[in-house]
């Protein structure tokens, strides 16, 4: 029997860059996608921020991103983080690739990206290392408050950092 988790696109960022786009990874064949961002190796402890790309191939940079996530820290209290009008899903991943073996990872579900009558929603979970050797997790929710046809993703490091990694996009049929 055919499976219902179908690989749509795999994009590898092998040379360290400050930004990278994954285009044409969402289409009308699926309403829900699973996105795996793995082996994120950053040049400093920094956030990998997410923006969406619309069907005109324009990166949406307006302050229409709304997100909230819980930082689960192994050595101290958990932290609530949130923003109602941001230019990114800021906390899509936080990694400290300068630690050997410290590559970060995120798994997200994206809802309704190509439905131009609906906002684009996401949930995500992440695991990485911070502050030397402490385990660190994230559980997050987000929305792009635009009823737009979204076809891709754009990743932007903060803190002038760069990154390598791999993005794997599946359609959940």
């Amino acid at each position, binding site marked *: 029997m055919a499976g219902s988790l179908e690989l749509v696109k795999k994009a590898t960022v092998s040379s360290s860059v400050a930004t990278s786009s994954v285009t044409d990874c969402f289409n009308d064949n699926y309403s829900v996608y699973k996105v795996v961002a793995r082996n994120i190796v950053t040049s400093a402890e920094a956030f990998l921020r997410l923006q969406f790309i619309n069907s005109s191939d324009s990166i949406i940079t307006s302050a229409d991103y*709304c997100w909230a996530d819980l930082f689960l820290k192994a050595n101290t209290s958990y932290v609530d983080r949130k923003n109602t009008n941001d230019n990114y899903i800021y906390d899509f991943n936080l990694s400290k690739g300068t630690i050997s073996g410290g590559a970060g990872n995120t798994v997200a*579900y994206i809802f309704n990206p190509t439905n131009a009558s*609906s906002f684009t929603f996401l949930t995500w979970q992440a695991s990485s290392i911070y502050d030397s050797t402490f385990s660190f997790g994230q559980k997050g929710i987000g*929305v792009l408050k635009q009823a737009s046809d979204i076809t891709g993703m754009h990743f932007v490091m903060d803190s002038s950092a760069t990154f390598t990694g791999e993005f794997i996009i599946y359609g959940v049929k």
Partner: protein
Amino acid sequence: MAGSLIKITSASTTSNVSTIDIGGANWDSSYDVYMVKLYNLEQSGTTDVRLKARILKSDNSADSTANYDYAYKGLRTGAGFDNLADTNQTEFTNLTYLFRGSTSYGANAIFYLFNFNNASEYNFITVEGNGYGYDGSELMGAMGGGVHTVAQVGKGLQFSLTTDSISNAYIDLYGLKK
């Protein structure tokens, strides 16, 4: 190579219903773990509501006994996060949030179901979901887990809302191949 996430059945509505079931008579007991995908959930009214669910029993009816325990983190953008926990309830509530009935808003969630075919074990679930528009402009969602503390076979979920009817929803049930 064949995939390992196998679609079992779907349910949807585009008109008002008080409940909607996924599984039941269409349940396939071949799997140990299941995934439920819920998207474009909308309600009939304009109040802020929450999504609830009950376990479908072996006779395909919803179990309303007070045996539902759950603990979620309620993530939100307008205030500090909530601890949503309770025991011995008659349903899983607070599964995610749904606001104002706008077609541009709506709610979405992913669930995993564990031990539903084992009559000697409790039924466990995890949830991650969100909805936009609380009080007009707040994003809220829930992440966590729950258990129905009755050792019995489960055959899916029955969804409902705290108030209002479900006016739109698309739900798919998958089995994770052994």
